[in-house]
């Protein structure tokens, strides 16, 4: 216990020394580099010596062991002291106040486990870490960490190694030990276990102990290797630091020199100014005195003259004597015009003082250069702003200011926001999508702020568009997709992204259609597939996130009924595929004629995709219903019946007196065709390539009629109900084979 406490004291003493050890500052010398490896080897040498000594002394002697331990520890402390001496020369002034010994012992004591952790120097290491943070401006925390660890190893390991080597192969001759006392860390003879001091101790067979000791050695060797690598890396790093320090000092010298010269110049200038001022004053005063001297002489002459005149008068005793008063009135000026004493001239050295004061500081940085916005760097709510500084500048922080650009009211500038960062970039968040912001940046250091950089305009990415899923139309070869911008301001373009769903051969491949200026796009697709489609909006800032996806199947043609064309008497279902004419009617008189809405025939159009090729759809009808189905140009006269002009081609069914009548109407004419089985489902094939429109009875695969029609424009499906009832459109279905023969 005594020994241990003694060691602890030693440790406590060495704790503050650690600080010196770790501190690497800008002004550190290179000597530190070699220190660690050297120390390491020295340490090891000592350990070996200790080991040998131990061997000679014989086993089973715990005391001897302890002595050794002490020796080694002392050695370690010695090195610590040595280091300390070396370092103290350099750091005394800076580090001394911080390393007050009295501050640490309680901390260390609290931490210390009296049993085995006596050699754990970690607590001091940790405090060192805390201290090191204060110097963060120079090296990274990682460097300090490396350094500390390295040091911890050299010290901690010394004792560990010692532990390992403490078990020599000395169990020979008469006193051969056969068990190992774990508690005392020493080989003992088995009988010793029974009595003696090892009575209560844990013992294991010596061979086992040997094995574990060997393992330990291997582990330690491995650790050492790692440590060597670490040290090498660290040495390289220190070299870099060395160069940097050299450079920094060079700069600092230059800086100091220029300041010094500046001050000298200023002083010289001041000297010149003062000398000149003094000279002028002197000249002025002398001139004044001279002038007074001259006038004084003149006065003297006058007096003398007067005296003579008076004397003459006295001699002559003339009545002229009365005139005398006149002469006496002449005054003599005896005031000294110029003060002989020197006026108190205060010298103003404040600017010089300021210059002197600034010698130790660095110059204020010059204005940073703000970069233009990098493409695709923005998101909907953030931009990444980058700038650069002149390499000579020392900058502690940057202040980045921004505000939204507003074209409408230039007078009312929005308040600018400012953030302070240490890096030469900043991701500014919580911005409004698709909006321009202007950014400017100033650099700061102890000397003050730099001038502001140029203002740069950055733009946030747009909000994602919203696909109008109900307006998607498709056919075997293409899809027409529409979307809402999702942004109040216009965006540059849109991108449509397609991914084939559940397709084994092309899974996950995304195709993109870029540069779409409008809110709709006709995209070519492969037939018989399923696609997942997303849209992004783009501006200079970058693309928005993807819109909600829409799924499209290229099986048959898919369309919905167009509500805009719907006769008021018709009701279209939610899915846009069923149209109902109810019994009740609004009087036809109230219907105003329209270009888009059917007002005379009770009809509605479908929104077929404007793609040439072929389109097939089916219409489910009640066989007693009067209906007309077919196609019409978009600009078909909405006030006429379907088939009553040359802009529509239709099949009309009328049911009267239990007879079905079928007409195939175009321009009011129809061929005479009788159909014996009334179709319940009519298939309609529109074939642009062959300019044909065919009608089929789906259930019978029966061909009913084929129009040859010149389709100079795109047509749309049309449906009309002449009597109350309903029609159901089936689309998105593949074309039955039988229709391909027509």
């Amino acid at each position: 216990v005594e020994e241990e406490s003694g060691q602890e004291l030693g440790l406590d003493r060495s704790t503050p020394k650690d600080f010196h050890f770790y501190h690497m500052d800008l002004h550190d010398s290179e000597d530190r580099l070699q220190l660690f490896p050297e120390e390491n080897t020295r340490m090891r040498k000592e350990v070996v010596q200790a080991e040998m000594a131990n061997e000679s002394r014989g086993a089973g002697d715990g005391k001897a062991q302890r002595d050794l331990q002490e020796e080694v520890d002392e050695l370690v402390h010695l090195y610590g002291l040595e280091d300390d001496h070396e370092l103290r020369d350099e750091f005394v002034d800076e580090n001394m106040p911080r390393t007050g010994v009295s501050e640490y012992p309680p901390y260390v004591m609290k931490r210390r486990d009296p049993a085995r952790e006596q050699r754990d120097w970690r607590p001091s290491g940790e405090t060192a870490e805390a201290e090191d943070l204060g110097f963060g401006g120079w090296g990274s925390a990682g460097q300090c960490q490396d350094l500390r660890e390295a040091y911890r190893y050299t010290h901690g390991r010394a004792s560990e190694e010692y532990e390992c080597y403490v078990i020599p192969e000395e169990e020979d001759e008469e006193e051969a030990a056969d068990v190992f006392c774990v508690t005392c860390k020493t080989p003992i003879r088995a009988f010793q276990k029974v009595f003696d001091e090892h009575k209560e101790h844990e013992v294991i067979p010596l061979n086992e102990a040997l094995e574990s000791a060997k393992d330990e050695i291997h582990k330690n060797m491995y650790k050492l290797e790692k440590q060597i690598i670490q040290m090498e890396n660290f040495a390289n790093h220190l070299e870099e630091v060395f160069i940097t320090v050299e450079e920094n000092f060079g700069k600092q010298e230059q800086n100091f020199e220029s300041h010094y010269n500046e001050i000298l110049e200023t002083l010289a200038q001041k000297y010149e100014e003062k000398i000149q001022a003094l000279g002028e004053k002197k000249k002025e005063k002398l001139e004044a005195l001279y002038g007074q001297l001259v006038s004084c002489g003149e006065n003297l002459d006058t007096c003398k003259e007067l005296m003579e005149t008076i004397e003459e008068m006295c001699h002559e005793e003339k009545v002229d004597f009365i005139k005398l008063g006149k002469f006496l009135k002449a005054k003599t000026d005896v005031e000294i015009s110029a003060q002989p004493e020197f006026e108190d001239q205060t010298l103003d050295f404040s600017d010089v003082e300021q210059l002197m004061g600034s010698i130790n500081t660095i110059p204020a940085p010059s204005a940073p250069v703000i970069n233009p916005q990098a493409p695709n760097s923005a998101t909907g709510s953030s931009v990444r702003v980058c700038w650069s500084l002149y390499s000579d500048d020392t900058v502690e922080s940057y202040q980045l200011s921004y505000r939204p650009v507003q074209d409408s009211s230039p007078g009312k500038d929005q308040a600018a926001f400012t953030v302070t960062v240490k890096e030469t970039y900043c991701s500014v968040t919580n911005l409004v999508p698709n909006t321009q912001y202007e950014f400017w940046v100033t650099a700061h250091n102890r000397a003050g702020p730099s001038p502001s950089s140029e203002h740069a305009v950055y733009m946030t990415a747009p909000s994602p568009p919203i696909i109008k899923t109900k307006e998607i139309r498709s056919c075997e070869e293409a899809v027409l997709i529409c979307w809402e911008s999702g942004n109040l301001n216009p965006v540059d373009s849109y991108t449509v992204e397609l991914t084939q769903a559940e397709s084994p051969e092309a899974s996950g491949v995304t195709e993109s259609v870029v540069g779409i200026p409008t809110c709709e796009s006709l995209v070519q697709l492969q037939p018989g597939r399923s696609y997942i489609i997303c849209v992004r909006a783009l501006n200079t800032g970058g693309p928005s996130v993807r819109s909600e996806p829409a799924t499209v199947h290229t099986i048959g043609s898919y369309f919905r009924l167009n509500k805009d064309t719907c006769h008021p008497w018709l009701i279209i279902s939610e899915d846009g595929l069923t149209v109902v004419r109810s019994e009740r009617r609004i009087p036809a008189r109230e219907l105003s004629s329209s270009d888009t809405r059917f007002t005379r025939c009770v009809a509605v159009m479908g929104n077929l995709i404007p793609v040439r090729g072929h389109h097939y759809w089916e219409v489910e009808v009640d066989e007693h219903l009067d209906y007309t189905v077919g196609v019409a140009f978009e600009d078909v006269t909405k006030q006429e019946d379907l088939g009553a002009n040359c802009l529509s081609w239709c099949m009309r069914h009328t049911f009267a007196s239990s007879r079905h009548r079928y007409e195939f109407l175009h321009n009011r004419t129809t061929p005479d065709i009788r159909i014996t089985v009334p179709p319940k489902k009519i298939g309609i094939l529109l074939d642009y390539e062959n300019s044909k429109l065919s009608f089929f009875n789906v259930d019978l695969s029966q061909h009913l009629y084929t129009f040859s029609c010149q389709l100079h424009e795109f047509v749309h499906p049309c449906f009309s109900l002449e009597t109350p009832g309903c029609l159901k459109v089936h689309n998105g279905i593949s074309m039955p084979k039988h229709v391909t023969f027509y």
Partner: protein
Amino acid sequence: YFWRRMALTQISSNKCFGGLQKVFEHDSVELNCKMKFAAYLPPKAETEKCPALYWLSGLTSTEQNFISKSGYHQAASERGLAVIAPDTSPRGCNIKGEDESWDFGTGAGFYVDTTEDPWKTNYRMYSYVMEELPQLINASFLVDPQRMSICGHSMGDHGVLICALKNPGNYKSVSAFAPICSPVLCPWGKRVFSGYLGTDQSKGKAYDATRSQLDILIDQGKDDQFLLGGQLLPDNFIAACTEKKIPIVFRLQEGYEHSYYFIATFITDHIRHHAKYLNAWKTPNKRISSGL
């Protein structure tokens, strides 16, 4: 297999639209005389079994009328149909009175098996057309016995409809030009037709349009002299078929009359009509569709 013994004698062979238009002669067992028939073999018939379309000509015709006047070859060649056109009656049987009338005897077999003397030995055109000829064709040429269709003109339509309606499923499709002798149009034919169709309820069910693929295409010239003469009653015919749910598309063609000019105009439609069923037959004619 008695017909095998009877050799086919090729009368002529002419290349036409890549295929061959041939005429053969053979000794008919049913008709007890030498019979000629025309057979068009499309280019496809060189490599694979083709479906066969039987053409039954009208009164006074031989096998030559159709092959020389209707101009069907191109359509048949493109769609790979073999076209068989038999003569309209036994010839040279030396039956008294057979050449006296244009609508009775030679050239007017009516495609029935006669039961009365002196006709019954030779005039068994129904059996000839229904049995002997197809068997001969199937044995002699590369045709698919499972795929047959039938088509005719005028009196031929009588045979067409009899054959088709009496043997549902035997023919994949049926079509007709100007069926003046259609069973429903004359008292005699009406009786026959209703006899075949009306009295046998179980067979009538087989003609259910929704169960049978038998889809009949009929073209009728509106200026046909027989129609104008009031002998045709298409409305009645249509009404009857409507009642029986026999799927018919009946097209009244404006300005056309009864001749082969009329046939030539619409023969392509008919070939296509048959091809739809004959060529689609390989794969069952089901709609391959799915909703969105």
